[in-house]
C-alpha cells in the first residue's frame, strides 16, 4: 500500500509515478489528501491567470476571478489606475466581501460588520470605528487590508498573479513560452495593439479532478478522432465553424514537417505548435463560418507575414495548434481556457476570448459566435470532451480502480531536445510528451520545499523524470 503524503517534502509522492513504465497512479486524481497538497504546493506558488485588462477599463472597475479554489477581486485603482488582485475574504471574520460578478466601486464593504476596503485593498472603515464603546481607536487599519497577491503581472493585457513572493518573474516562469503567449495576445496582424475580450467569463462545472482536463487538453491529439467523432461526422468543424477549411490541408498533408509537439519538463508547459519561419506564416486557409470574416483575416495574415519576414517565431496557437501553461491554462490566439479546481472531484472551466480592438463588427461577431458555439457546456465540440472527462472520475475512484495506473507512455523516449524549440520535441502531434512534461513539473512542485528548489531551472536541476 502506498502511503498518503501528509508533509511537504515527503518524497513518497514519487512512488505514484513510474517513469520506466510510463504510468501515473490513479490515486493522484482521486485522493482528497493529494488534492489538498496540490492546492498548497502548486496553486499557492504558480502564476495563475486572472483575466484581461479590457474587462476593467475604467478606474474603480472590478471583476471577480479565481485562483484555484479561492476567489479574488481584480480591481483597477481609482487613483493610480493600477490593477491589483486581492483575496475575496474579509480580514475581520472571513466573509466574502464582494458577491457581484463585476462592477465599478469606490470601496468594497463587507456585509457582515462593514469593514470596508478601498481599491488598493486598504482598510478604510469599519462599523462603529469611532464608537467609544467599540474599537476605541485601537483598530490598526494599516495592518488589516485585504490579502493582496504577492506578485502581479499585466502581460500584454493578460492579467496574472501568484501568492508566492519567491516565485520567479512571470517571464521567467513562462520561459520561451512568454513569446508564444505574446503572439496569442497580439492582434491578428501581429501588432501589440491589444485585444478586446468578450465579457463575461464563460464558466461551468464539471465533476472530475482538475488534472483530467487540465493535464491533457491541448496536448492530447489522439483523443480528437474518437471523442470528436460526432462533430466531424455532422460536419461541425472544430475550429472556426463548419466550413471545414482546415480539414482539407490536414488530409492532404498529415504531418507537415513544421508541426511539433513539445513538452518542457522543467517548466511544465507544452503543447502542439507550428513553427513559423521565414518567409513567414503559411498561406491563409479559409476557415470561418460567418460571411466576410475570412477576408479580414486573410488581409491581416498578409500584413503579419510581412512584419515577421526574417523572423523565426515562437511556437504559438494560430494555424497550427495550441499550448498549455502549467498548471492548467490552455492558450490559443485570442482565447484562454483554464481550469479552476473546486475539490478533488469538481473543477470549474473558465473561458475568455476576444479579438483585435479595431476589428469591424462582423469580424467581432464571427469570432464571438465561434467561441459561443465551440466552448463549454453548449459547445458542440467541447461537450464531447465533458462527457469523457466527467466519467473518468467515478470509474477511477473505486477501491479496485484506484489501484491501477494510467498509461502515459505514448511516444515516451521518442522526443528529442532541439535548439530551436523549448523542451522535448516530437516531430508530429500524436504523443503524450507534453502530458509527461506536466507530470515532471507536478512532481517537482509536490516535492519542493520552496521556489528555491524549483527555480532557476537549468540543466543541473533537470526535472525531467521520463
Amino acid at each position: 500500500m502506498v502511503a498518503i503524503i501528509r508533509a511537504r517534502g515527503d518524497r513518497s509522492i514519487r512512488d505514484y509515478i513510474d517513469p520506466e513504465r510510463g504510468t501515473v497512479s490513479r490515486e493522484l486524481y482521486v485522493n482528497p489528501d493529494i488534492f489538498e497538497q496540490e492546492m498548497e504546493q502548486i496553486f499557492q506558488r504558480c502564476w495563475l491567470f486572472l483575466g484581461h485588462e479590457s474587462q476593467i477599463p475604467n478606474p474603480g472597475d472590478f471583476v471577480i476571478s479565481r485562483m484555484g479554489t479561492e476567489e479574488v477581486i481584480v480591481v483597477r485603482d481609482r487613483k493610480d489606475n493600477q490593477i491589483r488582485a486581492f483575496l475575496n475574504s474579509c480580514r475581520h471574520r472571513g466573509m466574502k466581501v464582494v458577491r457581484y460578478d463585476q462592477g465599478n466601486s469606490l470601496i468594497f464593504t463587507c456585509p457582515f460588520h462593514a469593514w470596508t476596503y478601498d481599491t488598493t485593498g486598504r482598510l478604510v472603515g469599519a462599523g462603529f470605528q469611532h464608537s467609544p464603546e467599540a474599537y476605541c481607536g485601537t483598530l490598526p487599519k494599516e495592518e488589516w487590508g485585504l490579502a493582496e497577491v504577492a506578485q502581479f503581472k499585466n502581460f500584454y493585457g493578460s492579467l496574472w498573479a501568484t501568492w508566492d513572493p519567491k516565485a520567479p518573474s512571470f517571464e521567467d516562469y513562462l520561459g520561451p513560452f512568454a513569446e508564444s503567449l505574446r503572439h496569442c495576445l497580439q492582434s491578428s496582424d501581429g501588432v501589440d495593439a491589444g485585444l478586446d475580450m468578450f465579457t463575461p467569463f464563460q464558466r461551468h462545472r464539471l465533476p472530475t479532478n482538475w488534472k483530467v482536463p487540465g493535464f491533457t487538453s491541448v496536448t492530447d491529439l489522439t483523443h480528437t478522432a474518437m471523442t470528436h467523432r460526432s462533430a466531424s461526422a455532422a460536419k461541425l468543424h472544430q475550429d472556426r465553424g463548419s466550413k471545414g477549411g482546415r480539414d482539407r490541408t490536414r488530409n492532404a498533408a498529415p504531418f507537415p514537417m513544421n508541426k511539433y509537439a513539445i513538452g518542457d519538463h522543467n517548466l511544465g508547459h507544452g503543447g502542439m505548435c507550428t513553427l513559423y519561419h521565414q518567409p513567414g506564416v503559411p498561406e491563409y486557409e479559409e476557415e470561418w463560418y460567418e460571411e466576410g470574416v475570412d477576408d479580414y483575416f486573410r488581409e491581416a495574415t498578409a500584413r503579419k507575414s510581412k512584419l515577421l519576414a526574417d523572423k523565426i517565431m515562437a511556437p504559438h496557437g494560430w494555424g497550427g495548434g495550441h499550448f498549455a501553461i502549467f498548471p492548467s491554462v490552455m492558450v490559443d490566439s485570442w482565447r484562454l481556457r483554464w481550469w479552476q479546481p473546486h475539490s478533488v472531484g469538481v473543477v470549474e472551466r473558465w473561458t475568455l476570448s476576444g479579438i483585435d480592438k479595431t476589428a469591424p463588427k462582423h469580424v467581432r461577431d464571427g469570432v464571438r459566435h465561434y467561441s459561443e458555439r465551440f466552448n463549454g457546456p453548449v459547445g458542440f465540440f467541447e461537450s464531447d470532451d465533458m462527457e469523457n472527462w466527467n466519467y473518468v472520475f467515478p470509474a477511477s475512484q473505486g477501491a479496485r480502480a484506484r489501484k491501477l495506473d494510467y498509461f502515459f507512455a505514448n511516444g515516451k523516449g521518442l522526443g528529442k531536445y532541439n535548439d530551436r524549440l523549448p523542451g522535448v520535441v516530437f516531430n508530429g502531434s500524436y504523443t503524450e510528451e507534453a502530458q509527461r512534461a506536466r507530470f515532471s513539473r507536478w512532481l517537482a512542485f509536490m516535492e519542493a520545499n520552496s521556489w528555491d528548489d524549483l527555480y532557476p531551472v537549468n540543466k543541473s536541476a533537470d526535472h525531467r523524470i521520463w
Partner: protein
Amino acid sequence: MTEPKKYVLSGPNGADTFRNLPEGTKIATIYGGAGEITANPGDGAYVLVRFTEHENAALVGQEEYVFFNEVREATE
C-alpha cells in the same frame, strides 16, 4: 428663505435614501463632526465626507468614510 431639506434616514426607505445621498450633502455626525459628502459609494454603509469640524482636529479638511449609524443628520 426655505429650510434646507433634511433627508429621512430612518424607516423602511432610510437605507435606500442613504445609498443615494448626493455629493454636496451636509453631514453631521453623532460625535460632533460636520462636513460634506464628496462621494457616495452606494453600498448603504458609508459616505465619504470632507470634514469642516471634527472631534479629532487633525481630520479637519480631510476625507473619511462615515458609517451610516454615525450620521446624526444629512441636509441638502
